[in-house]
Structure formats: structure tokens, C-alpha cells
């Protein structure tokens, strides 16, 4: 077996705790590990179903104007944006600054092999997003369009190459941000600010529609121009899969591969230098004893959580993006109104439904803001500190919950205030615009913590793993989405009264929150005490 395949095997089987699940001692523990993997599989299926629904709506719209051939390139372009977005946040800890860097680099393995294994691992994990988006799209496309046998090999070939360029661009930009910020004292803060600015730019440029020069007579070309604005290779992809153009296919594959190999070579060339830069921290060694500020134990614990949160870009970005997007959408609604947002979000009928579903819309963004889900896992090898200190476990847990509340409560209030004004809500709707998101915010903070108490993971090698690839984060995200979406489904599908659904949801959430508080203060604290 080659060194590359040995490294790949080692990296891939540690993903999602597969290796741990398969090698757990004891029937119960093993069954639990495997059960968790099955649960994650079920979650992936649920996401597939959601994407299927969304793409179906898109396809229906395109088919109605005779433009179904643009479905694949449009979704492909969106897929590239998603991969780009996630790749910007991931390189540190995956490509650079990973915990077993010292061990791997001391082994008799070429640096280029190590780099290749990390890049391939990144590619395979991003292929997951590509499968999630493109597979349902393919199924839907085949229902609307007639294809010949030539379509299938072209689709399969191009499918494998879709994420190549976005991964490398995202990783390159993400690494640049990390390298630039590493030179500064407040490197994490700078890292976070630069990443947020980049995220904003990606979203802005991928959704900016320049309608000033449109020739409405050539609608097809206009659509293609918009798609190309999102991702420049989309035009080649369109010609490949819709016109079975082999030249376009080869160009698409060739450009993707050439770019991939070039950037991979650059990464490999500067691999040691970048890792050295990232792992050596500048020490000023010029401290002089000064007057210290004291605080209560609960304040100290909360401050510790806040510092932890701000010190970890992936932790912050993974949780704050949702509320920021929610606030941005509320501001957009305030300035542009429901009709323009309907176009922006590509959600037909949005304008009419905005008032009844607004509380749930905000709640969805709030419910996806869960800092507690990885918070216990993130204690990692530091767990011994809080466990050996004279602080009740309850206090430690509540500090984590309070951090979450610091994010979701102001966001809920800001969104509630903006929407009350934008939608000219009466007092009942106003109450719901504030109360419902707050209830969801408390819910997700408590639920995330309980999930992490049930599924802690202290043996992570990178913070990214603890934050994004943990069972607790996965469950909290799925449940958050489900709990926020379920009342909207009842509202729209069963056509129940908006007030009834909203009040019932609020009542159920308040009850659940009270039960969870009780559990955390009693059993939850004991569970934390038993963690070692």
C-alpha cells in the first residue's frame, strides 16, 4: 500500500468517528457508535429531501418558461458557492496547523504526499456537498428533460470535477487570511473579521443581479449571464451537459484539473513555511505586574466562555453567520419590501406570506445559532481544569448557555424591532415577533447543551472537528431546523390559523424550555460530573 493511501485511510476513517464506532469495546458502546452513524445517515437523507423540494420548485419554474436546460448549471454554480464558502473557513486545522503535523512530518513520508492526502481529504469531504446538491438535481432534471446516452458519462465526469476550483480558491483565500492575521497580536479577531468580510463578499457577488443591460428578447442568454456571474465555468458546464459538447466538457475538466494541480503545487511548495508561521506564536515577554481586576466566579466562567468563543474562528463563524444573515434579511426587508426579497430569495409567494411567517423566519435563523452544541467537547484536554475547581457543574453549564443567549437574545430583539417597523405589525404580531424567536433562542441554547452532554467528544485533533463534525452539532442543527420549520409546514400545508400555530408553538417551547432547565440543573450537572 502506498504512503498516500495509508494516510488517506487513516484520515478518512477518523471522520465522523467511524473508526471509534467500529472499534468500541463492549456491545452497548459499539451499538451506540454505530447507531449514531445511522442517525447521521438519516439526517443526510432529510437534507437530501429538503434540497429535492427546493430544486423541484426551481425546476418547475424553469420548465414553465421552457428553460429547464439551465437547471443543472444553476445548481452547479450554487454548489460551487457553497463549497467556496465552507472551504474559506476550513483550511486551518485541515490543510495547515493540524494537530498531528509534528508526527506526520517526522515520518519518512514526502511532504508532497502529506499535502496530497490533506487536499484529497478536503476534496472528498466537499464532494459530499456536491452529492447532496447535484444528486437530487439530476433526478429532477431527468424527469423534466429528455437526454441521450451521451449525457450520462458527461455528467459523471464533470460531477467529479465540480468542487475542484472552489475548494482550492476557498482554501487559498482562507489560508491567506490565517497567514496575514497570524502576524498580528490579535490574530484571532483579525482572522474572524477578515473571514466575515470575505463571507459577505461571496454572498454579495453571488447574488448581485445586474439588470441594467439586459436584453429581454434573449432570455436564455440573460439567464446564462447571471449564472456565469455566480461561477464563470458554468457556461462551459452548460454546453457540456445540455449540448453534449465534448470540447466544452474537456475544457471544463482541463481547466478545473490544471487549476487544482497548480494551486496544490503552490501549497506543497510552501507547506512547511506556512505551518511554521502558523504554529510559532510571537511572545513579547515584557509583562510587568499591574493592578488586577477581580470578578465573581460566574462572571469569570462567562468571560472564559467568551474568550474561548472569540479565540476560535471556526467556532465563531459556524454559529454567528446564521444570526447575521437573519439580521441582514430583516434589514433588506425594511429597505426593499417583500416583493424584491421574493425575487432575491427566489421564493414565489413570499411577499404575501411574510407577516404570518416572519416570526418563524427569524426563529429559523436563531435556531441555527447554537454555541452550546460543541461547547463541552471544546473543553477537550482542558476539562480537568473546571472539574478540579470549586465551582458547581451547574455554573459551568450555565456559563455556556449564557454565551449562546448573548448571541440570540439581542439578535431576536433587533430582528423583532426591524420587522415590527417594516411590516407595520399590530401589537399581537409584534409580540410574536419578539416572543417566538426569544423562545427558540432559549430552546436551542438548552437543547444544544443537553445534546453535548449526551454526546461529548474530547479527543478531537482540530477545533473544526469538535465544532462541525460532532454528533451533538449535527443533532442540534437538524432539530433546530425541524422545530423551526414544522410550524411553518402546518401553517402552509394544513392552512391552520397563524395565531393558533404561533401561540401553540410558543406554549410548547416554553414548556420544553422549563423541562430542560430542570434537567440541566439536576441530572445534567451530574452527567457533567461523570465526564472524565
Amino acid at each position: 500500500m502506498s504512503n498516500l493511501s495509508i494516510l488517506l485511510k487513516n484520515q478518512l476513517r477518523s471522520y465522523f468517528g467511524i473508526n471509534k464506532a467500529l472499534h468500541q469495546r463492549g456491545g452497548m458502546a459499539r451499538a451506540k457508535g454505530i447507531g449514531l452513524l445511522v442517525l447521521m445517515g438519516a439526517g443526510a437523507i432529510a437534507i437530501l429531501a429538503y434540497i429535492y423540494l427546493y430544486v423541484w420548485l426551481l425546476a418547475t419554474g424553469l420548465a414553465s418558461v421552457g428553460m429547464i436546460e439551465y437547471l443543472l448549471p444553476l445548481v452547479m454554480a450554487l454548489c460551487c458557492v457553497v463549497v467556496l464558502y465552507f472551504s474559506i473557513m476550513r483550511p486551518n486545522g485541515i490543510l495547515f496547523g493540524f494537530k498531528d503535523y509534528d508526527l506526520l512530518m517526522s515520518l519518512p513520508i514526502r511532504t508532497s504526499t502529506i499535502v496530497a492526502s490533506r487536499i484529497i481529504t478536503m476534496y472528498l469531504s466537499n464532494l459530499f456537498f456536491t452529492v447532496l446538491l447535484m444528486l437530487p438535481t439530476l433526478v429532477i432534471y431527468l424527469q423534466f428533460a429528455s437526454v441521450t446516452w451521451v449525457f450520462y458519462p458527461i455528467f459523471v465526469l464533470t460531477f467529479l470535477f465540480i468542487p475542484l476550483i472552489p475548494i482550492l480558491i476557498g482554501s487559498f483565500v482562507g489560508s491567506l487570511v490565517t497567514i496575514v492575521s497570524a502576524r498580528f497580536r490579535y490574530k484571532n479577531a483579525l482572522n474572524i473579521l477578515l473571514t466575515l468580510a470575505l463571507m459577505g463578499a461571496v454572498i454579495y457577488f453571488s447574488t448581485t443581479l445586474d439588470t441594467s443591460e439586459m436584453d429581454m428578447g434573449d432570455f436564455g442568454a440573460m439567464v446564462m449571464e447571471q449564472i456565469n456571474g455566480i461561477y464563470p465555468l458554468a457556461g462551459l458546464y452548460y454546453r457540456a451537459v445540455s449540448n453534449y459538447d465534448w470540447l466544452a466538457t474537456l475544457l471544463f475538466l482541463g481547466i478545473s484539473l490544471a487549476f487544482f494541480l497548480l494551486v496544490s503545487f503552490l501549497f506543497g511548495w510552501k507547506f512547511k513555511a506556512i505551518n511554521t508561521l502558523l504554529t510559532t506564536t510571537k511572545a513579547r515577554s515584557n509583562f510587568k505586574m499591574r493592578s488586577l481586576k477581580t470578578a465573581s466566579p460566574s462572571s469569570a466562567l462567562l468571560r472564559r466562555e467568551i474568550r474561548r468563543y472569540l479565540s476560535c474562528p471556526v467556532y465563531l463563524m459556524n454559529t454567528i453567520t446564521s444570526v447575521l444573515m437573519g439580521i441582514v434579511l430583516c434589514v433588506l426587508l425594511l429597505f426593499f419590501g417583500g416583493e424584491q426579497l421574493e425575487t432575491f430569495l427566489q421564493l414565489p409567494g413570499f411577499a404575501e406570506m411574510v407577516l404570518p411567517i416572519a416570526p418563524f423566519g427569524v426563529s429559523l435563523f436563531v435556531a441555527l445559532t447554537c454555541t452550546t452544541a460543541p461547547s463541552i467537547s471544546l473543553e477537550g484536554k482542558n476539562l480537568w481544569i473546571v472539574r478540579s475547581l470549586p465551582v458547581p457543574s451547574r455554573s459551568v453549564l450555565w456559563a455556556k448557555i449564557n454565551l449562546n443567549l448573548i448571541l440570540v437574545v439581542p439578535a431576536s430583539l433587533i430582528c423583532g424591532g426591524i420587522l415590527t417597523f417594516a411590516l407595520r405589525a399590530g401589537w399581537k404580531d409584534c409580540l410574536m415577533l419578539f416572543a417566538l424567536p426569544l423562545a427558540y433562542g432559549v430552546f436551542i441554547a438548552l437543547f444544544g447543551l443537553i445534546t453535548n452532554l449526551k454526546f461529548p467528544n474530547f479527543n478531537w485533533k482540530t477545533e473544526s472537528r469538535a465544532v462541525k463534525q460532532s454528533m451533538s452539532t449535527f443533532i442540534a442543527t437538524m432539530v433546530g431546523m425541524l422545530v423551526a420549520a414544522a410550524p411553518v409546514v402546518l401553517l402552509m400545508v394544513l392552512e391552520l390559523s397563524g395565531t393558533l400555530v404561533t401561540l401553540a408553538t410558543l406554549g410548547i417551547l416554553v414548556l420544553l424550555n422549563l423541562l430542560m432547565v430542570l434537567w440541566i440543573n439536576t441530572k445534567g450537572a451530574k452527567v457533567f460530573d461523570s465526564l472524565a
Partner: protein
Amino acid sequence: MLRINHFTKSYKGGKKAVDDLSLQVLPGDIYGFIGHNGAGKTTTIRAVVGILDFEQGDIEINGISIKKDPIACKSVTAYIPDNPDLYEYLTGIQYLNFVGDIFRISKEAREERIARYGDAFEITKSLGDPLSSYSHGMKQKLAIISALIHTPKLLVLDEPFVGLDPKASHTLKEIMKELCATGSAIFFSTHVLDVAEKLCNKVAIIKDGRLVESGTIEEIKGNSSLEDVFMELIDHE
């Protein structure tokens, strides 16, 4: 100060990491806890400081059971693990301040003690730097300072001299003697028998989870060296 009564810790599968361990550490004792790798020293220590749950036996600190009132026990105890993984996202002074806040140490006492121990371990200048920039030895020193600033009644250390430079080791030994002179007690594990022989007034030797010998240093070693006694006990028990 510390009383371990029939402490037994079993893991899943029935394997006993520690089996029916009983010993007592009195105020003023510097108690060495010696054993081979995997003997159960760290398991015992982690149970003493309240990190590890256990079902059989009991551990009392200052007469209070760690099971019944862990907060009271932890309030008078300080723990330094063998490999102190500290909060890399904090600076040295932020970490010490955090510990100071948890133990509610007054501002004046905190500043005085941090300055004193910081100078003693020659780490004051680095207190403003992030812990991610600290070497292993520097983290060890900071962990020691964080343990000392709240003047514990019981200081529990797991391999405290590993990673410390000779000067820091000497400083730590002096501080340990000072602490015990004021009525505190020290319970620490070590592989360095030479240090245990010179520093401790009592030792306990553990093998495969069971206590094989305990008592004063004179009782244990007699006319031999502690190393000879240890090897004899470990090979022939």
C-alpha cells in the same frame, strides 16, 4: 488532611484500576505516591481531586467526603496534572486571574502572590503572552503558580518535576517544604525515587492497583535505598 478509605475504581469490563486502597495524609506530610506505569497512581489522584467518579470506598479531605461535598473539598485542594493542558487562548495572567476569581482571592493577595511566585519561577515577564507560546516547562510553572495562589491545604501533584528545569525544581521543593511547615499537606506521584527519598517524610508504593507498602520513609527503606526497596517489592509481590 486526606483520608482514602477502601477506594476501588473499576472500568467497563470489570478491570480494576485501583483495588481497595487506603491511606492517610496528615497536615505537614509530604507524601510520595510511587508505582510503575499503569499502577493506578493517576487514577487515585484524579479521584482525590474530584475529577474521576467512583463507586466503592470514600475519599475525605479535611474530614469532608469528596462525594458528599465536592465543592468544599476542592476549595481547599490544588491539583497539578503531569501534563498541564491549559487554556491556550488565554494569556498567563488571564489564566491566573481566572483561577483567582474562582477561588475568590482578594485583589491584593492575588497581586502579591502572583508577583512572588512569578519572580520565584522567573516567569513574570511571560505572563502577558498567550499560553500557546509557552513551552511545556513554562506551562508547568504556571500551573504550579495557579495552584499556590489560593494557599491550598492539600496540594496534589502528578509527576510535578517532569519538564521543570533544575532551578524551578529546586524552587518547587522549597515551596513544598514551606507549605507543609504552615500545616498544609502534599500528596504527589513521582517516578524519581531519589526526589521522593529526599523530599518525602512518607511514601506509599502501589502495584497493579493495590497498595503494597506505606509508611514513613525510614520504615520503608530501612538501611537500603528507596530504589532497592521499590525494585524488591515490585519484582517479588
